C-alpha cells in the first residue's frame, strides 16, 4: 500500500504522457468569454490528429449538421465557438492518453463511460440551464484521476483492481485502501495544476460526494450524470456498478421523471455515434 500526498500526485503528473497543449488551453478557456473564435480555430487546425477527429465528430449525426464541414473554421462558424471548444476538447482528450499496461484496466470501457457521462451531463444541463458545453467536458474528464493513477502506478493500481474484484466494492473504496486517496481527489489536484476553471476542479474532486449547497452546481450535475451513465450500462463492463446516489444532489436537480426519460433516450441515441467518432 502507498499513501499518496498531493506532492506525490503532482510529481506523477510529470510522468504522464503530456496532453496536447491545445487541449489544456481549450479546457482552461472555459469561463473565458474573451477567447477569440479565430485564434481557437487556428490552434485546433495546427494539431492534425485533433482537427481530423473534431471534424469527424462535428460531421456525425450527433450534431446533425445540414451539410459536411471540411475545415475547423467552417465548423466554428456553424457550431459556434463554445460547442466547437467542447468537441475539440473531446477529440484531444480521447487519444491524448496512451493505453495503459495496467493489468485489469479496461481503457475502452473507461472512455465509453466517460463519453456516456459527458452526453448525460450535457442532456441534464440543457434541462437545468447550466452550461452544457462545460458539462460535456466535465463529464469527459471527471475520472481523469483514474488515468493518472493507472499511468503512474500501474502495479499498485492493478492490485487495487484485484482488491475491488475480490471484495466487490466500489473502485474509489479500493483506491483509498491502496493509495489513501481516491481518483476524485487525484483528479482535482491534477485539474488544479492544469489551471482548469475552479468549478471544474471542484466538480472533479467532489463527484462522488457532492457537498451541501444552496443551489444546483456542476458538481451535482456530474454526480448524477456519472450515476446515470453507470446505470444505463454504457461501459459494457460485466462487473460495473452504480455508486451511491447523493439524494440531496438529486433533489437539487429537481427534474421530473419525464425529463429523465428524455435524457435516457438522448444518451441511448447518441452514445454509439460519439463513441464511434472518438474511439475509432
Amino acid at each position, binding site marked *: 500500500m502507498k499513501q499518496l500526498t498531493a506532492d506525490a500526485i503532482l510529481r506523477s503528473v510529470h510522468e504522464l504522457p503530456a496532453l496536447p497543449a491545445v487541449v489544456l488551453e481549450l479546457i482552461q478557456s472555459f469561463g473565458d468569454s474573451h477567447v477569440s473564435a479565430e485564434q481557437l480555430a487556428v490552434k485546433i487546425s495546427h494539431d492534425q490528429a485533433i482537427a481530423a477527429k473534431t471534424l469527424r465528430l462535428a460531421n456525425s449525426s450527433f450534431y446533425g449538421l445540414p451539410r459536411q464541414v471540411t475545415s475547423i473554421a467552417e465548423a466554428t462558424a456553424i457550431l459556434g465557438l463554445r460547442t466547437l471548444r467542447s468537441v475539440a476538447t473531446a477529440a484531444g482528450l480521447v487519444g491524448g492518453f496512451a493505453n495503459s499496461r495496467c493489468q485489469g484496466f479496461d481503457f475502452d470501457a473507461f472512455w465509453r463511460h466517460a463519453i456516456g457521462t459527458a452526453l448525460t451531463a450535457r442532456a441534464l444541463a440543457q434541462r437545468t440551464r447550466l452550461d452544457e458545453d462545460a458539462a460535456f467536458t466535465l463529464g469527459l474528464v471527471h475520472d481523469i484521476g483514474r488515468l493518472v493513477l493507472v499511468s503512474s502506478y500501474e502495479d499498485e493500481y492493478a492490485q487495487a483492481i484485484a482488491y475491488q474484484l475480490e471484495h*466487490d466494492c*466500489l473502485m474509489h473504496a479500493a483506491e483509498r485502501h491502496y493509495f489513501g486517496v481516491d481518483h476524485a481527489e487525484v483528479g482535482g489536484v491534477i485539474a488544479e495544476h492544469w489551471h482548469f476553471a475552479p468549478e471544474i476542479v471542484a466538480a472533479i474532486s467532489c463527484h462522488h460526494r457532492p457537498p451541501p449547497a444552496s443551489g444546483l452546481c456542476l458538481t451535482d450535475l456530474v454526480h*448524477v450524470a456519472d*450515476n*446515470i451513465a*453507470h*446505470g*444505463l*450500462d454504457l461501459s*459494457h463492463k*460485466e462487473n*460495473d*456498478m*452504480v*455508486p*451511491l*446516489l447523493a*439524494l440531496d444532489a*438529486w433533489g437539487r436537480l429537481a427534474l421530473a*421523471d419525464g425529463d*429523465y*426519460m428524455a435524457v*435516457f433516450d438522448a444518451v441511448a441515441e447518441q452514445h454509439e455515434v460519439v463513441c464511434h467518432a472518438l474511439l475509432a
Partner: protein
Amino acid sequence: MQALSTSIEWTPEGMLLAQPVLDAHGQLLLPAGTPITRGILNSLQQRGIDTVFVNPPEGVSGIVDKLDPATQQAHTEKRLLHLFRPAMRAGQLNPLFHLILRYRSAETP
C-alpha cells in the same frame, strides 16, 4: 450474473448453456458453456427437454432482444440489481434504479 431460464422455443442461437443438460437418467447430454445452435435446439426438443438455463455471451449485444419478453424483463431486472448492488447493500432507496427499470421495461416489447 445469474442464468436465465428460457424455453427452447425462444432460445436464440449463440446463447451459452449456463448449466449442464441431463437426460431423464441423469446422463450428461451437454456441458455448461456449450454454445446453442439450431441443431442442439432440435435435438433437445426431440428428447422432450423444453427449458434450459442460458447466459448471453460476453461482448455480444442484441442477443438478449431475441428472448421472449418475460425472459428479457427478467434479464433486465437482474442486470439492474447487479449494477445497483452498492445501493441494495446499503439499503438505499435509489430513485434512479426505479427510473431506469421503468425505462428499460418500456423498451421490452
